[in-house]
């Protein structure tokens, strides 16, 4: 299928693809309504949140480097960074790979929140990711994600699940729905791949799926399943079309992260009603060979974020978008014996956008010479969330997070 049918007649006449659905077992009313419904006028001024997950636990001390602190170099005889540091102030510098981020920092388009963590930190990837994504205390368990609770509270959801023209509430890139999105009510969530061809009407994988989806299901659960799958497929087609036709106004590197963000930019440019996007970059679990690996990862992060921001600027969408990173934990202050670092606690995170206040926020971590000691967080990550919710998404953070956290003034 080359184009989405725009009218009911086109829908029915369509020679292949979804056109045939008009004659299949799916309730005709659903088709007629979906095909005739006007695309709702997008609300142009909606604020949008983009989350970048740095999976594996990014080493904070080699991201924002306390280069005047001898203890840093004592704890890290081989990993301590000295050359090419990108100064943020008299004591702190960004990793040499973060040139683009450094420029954004100097332009006031990035706030760096220092030493973000939570009480009684957990060092398991699984559990600590869960804590970050559900915004729970270290010793309480919650299924719903912090953004899922935001959807429950503040997004109308998909009361009319039949309306296939409704945009997804949230979109993620990757093969798994982030736990941050899990909610009590049902919302339309959509996942996309970070790359792939887009003349997908001819992609045999999708043609195959589409073909089977058109099989006759007269009644019962099969028809209900088919219906739900159709809705998702229609969204998929629309998203693909938007992405395929998108002209980026900055040059994105070929990395997975950059390509993911390019797709997000395309959807934002198309005025989708989607409020939240989630992309992920993995590989930060640097138990060994950290110097090389983290340099590559941070370089990918820096160039991707910068290309994304430039693109938004050029499309005049920058006022609408806030981009934020997070990682499940930082790493130990002392290096290990394999040229790496083990799981730790607090770490800095980046918040990017035209509307951010810029600068370094929160207190720097306090290093101690004891190699066994870990960093004590100074900013609770839920304070970061509360600012995002209250100030950016205009929601009620205490309602969503269960209590009030000290906000972080990046917006």
């Amino acid at each position, binding site marked *: 299928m080359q184009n989405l049918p725009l009218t009911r007649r086109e829908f029915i006449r369509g020679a292949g693809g979804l056109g045939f659905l008009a004659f299949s077992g799916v309730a005709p009313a659903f088709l007629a309504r979906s095909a005739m419904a006007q695309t709702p006028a997008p609300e142009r001024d909606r604020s949008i949140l983009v989350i970048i997950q740095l*999976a*594996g636990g990014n080493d904070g001390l080699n991201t924002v480097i306390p280069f005047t602190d001898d203890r840093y170099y004592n704890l890290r005889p081989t990993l301590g960074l000295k050359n090419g540091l990108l100064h943020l102030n008299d004591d702190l510098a960004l990793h040499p790979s973060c040139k683009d981020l450094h420029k954004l920092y100097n332009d006031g388009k990035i706030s760096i929140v220092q030493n973000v963590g939570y009480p*009684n930190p*957990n*060092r*398991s*990837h*699984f*559990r600590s*990711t869960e804590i970050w994504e559900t915004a729970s205390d*270290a*010793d309480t*368990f*919650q*299924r719903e994600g912090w953004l899922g609770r935001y959807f429950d509270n503040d997004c109308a959801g*998909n009361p009319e*699940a039949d309306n296939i023209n409704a945009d*997804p509430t949230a979109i993620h890139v990757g*093969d*798994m*729905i982030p*736990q941050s*999105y*899990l909610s009590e009510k*049902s*919302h*339309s*969530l*959509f*996942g996309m791949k970070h790359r792939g061809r887009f003349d997908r009407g001819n992609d*045999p*994988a999708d*043609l*195959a*799926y589409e*073909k*089977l*989806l*058109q*099989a*006759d*299901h*007269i*009644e*019962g*659960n*099969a*028809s*209900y*399943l*088919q219906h*739900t*799958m159709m*809705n*998702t497929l229609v969204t998929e087609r629309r998203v693909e079309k938007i992405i395929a036709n998108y002209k980026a106004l900055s040059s994105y590197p070929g990395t997975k992260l950059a390509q993911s963000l390019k797709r997000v930019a395309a959807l934002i440019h198309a005025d989708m009603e989607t409020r939240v996007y989630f992309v992920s970059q*993995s*590989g930060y*679990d640097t*138990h060994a060979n950290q110097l090389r690996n983290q340099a590559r990862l941070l370089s990918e992060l820096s160039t991707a974020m910068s290309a994304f921001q430039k693109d938004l600027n050029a499309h005049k969408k920058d006022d609408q978008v806030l981009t934020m990173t997070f990682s499940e934990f930082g790493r130990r202050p002392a290096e290990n014996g394999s040229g790496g670092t083990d799981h730790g606690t607090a770490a800095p995170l980046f918040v990017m956008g035209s509307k951010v206040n810029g600068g370094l926020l929160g207190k720097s971590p306090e290093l101690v010479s004891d190699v066994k000691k870990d960093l004590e967080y100074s900013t609770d990550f839920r304070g970061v969330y509360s600012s995002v919710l209250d100030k950016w998404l205009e929601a009620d953070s205490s309602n969503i997070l269960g209590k009030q956290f000290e906000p972080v003034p990046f917006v």
Partner: protein
Amino acid sequence: MSQSSPTPQNFAIEDAWKPLPGGFWRIEEAQHFLRRVGFSASPEAVTSALRGSPKAYLQQAFRPDSGMQRSDALKEFTANIHQRYQHIYREVEDEEEKRKLRQEIQREENELFRGFAMDWFYYARQPQQSAREKFVVFLQDIFVVEQNKVRDTELLFSLQQTLREGTTNSYPELCKKISREPAMVRYLDLLQNTARKPNENFARELFELFTLGEGNYTETDIKEAARAFTGYRIKKRREFYQEQRLHDDSKKTIFGETGKWNGDDVVDITFRQPAAKTFLIRELIKFYLTEEVVPEPYIQALGEQWAEHNFSLSYLIETFFQSRLFFHPAYRGNMVKSPLHFYIGLCQDLRIDIAPFEARVLRSMATMGQSFYNPPNVRGWLYGEHWINSTTISARRQLVDYIFAKLDEENLNANEQRDLEAAREAGRGNFLVTQERLQQVLSLAADDLATHLTTYFITAPSRATYRNALQSILGNTQDEGAAKRVRYAIIALLQSPAYNLC
């Protein structure tokens, strides 16, 4: 659902629960049976089942055995935990140090739980265990506890093991045993239930969720029953005992019977109520047969038989799963697979292992809506179409995509690399479908392959239309590019509405 549902007019009540006549035990029936009793109906399983009878299959599947084994890590943790806590509370003075030690225990506890979850998936994935494990899941959805609240792997394991062994017990006996399971004692606040301050939580759920159902008891029955369950205690974090000082030994009147009842007496009295004869059967029907309303006379009839057999679960299992009603064509092919069923069934259908990455498996289960041992609330999961919404459907599709994708070994974190190595050593490294494996089916012509795939993977109602669609997707299987098309065709089939049903 080509055939209309049975009614006492067209399908005699006295025949409904008789075993399926031998002549009707055919491929279709065996597939229905295997997918409903377990998770998958592979051609080998069908052939093997057809050599015997449903009865023989059930006897084998529910044979008494030692069940699932605790991991060494869990045994060791459990052996020491009481001492470790004693150490913390009696010997450590520094508050900060106490906190750290408790936190360390909690961390180990979480790790053990995830290990237990994975062990269970591996265990239930073995075809010879599947039927009973599915029944355990059924019972877990009756005797609900949430890991989030209990947070003790040993107790959760123990409860599950009791349910597993309970399949050879009578249902009242199982109820009594469950009332003594520390996980349940904690979950439904029996610890807070004392003669001076009764707590009704357990008594209410005993009536409402375990035995009778709403509307079949009064608030007074609950209040009186709660007093009978007073004094249930746990010592050394693990061991159940009854504390006479906390027990209310006075007279209670429950369902009109007056006496100095204790908890076990309440269970016995409960099973003299008419509603107890049919409650579990209704649940069984919902879980295994249909979301439709099954005419009441059928349910009453089985209820009477079951009561006559002293509520024996083996009797119920054998009667229900080989009955003519269970095999009625109206009840075939229209049940939405639960996420557990979907994943384990997928692994069995494709003859692959459970992926060795706990974060992936457990989160994928959560996204599909069925987080291991963590139902949304005391009522358990709502089955059927409740599993399906845009999020869970995407999660199911993504799971299939993952199984057919290449493993991105570069980007695994250290834990995952370790788990991958361990799985390969244990012979469980085959958890994705490789292109080489798909190559093997190319010896078949497209029409034969389409027939094979639809017979293998989906139920009868959708076969004809799917077969044609698949055949056209497959094209010439000797062509260049055929291997790819086979892959797409199978992925599409596994993501289709029909594959989500059984």
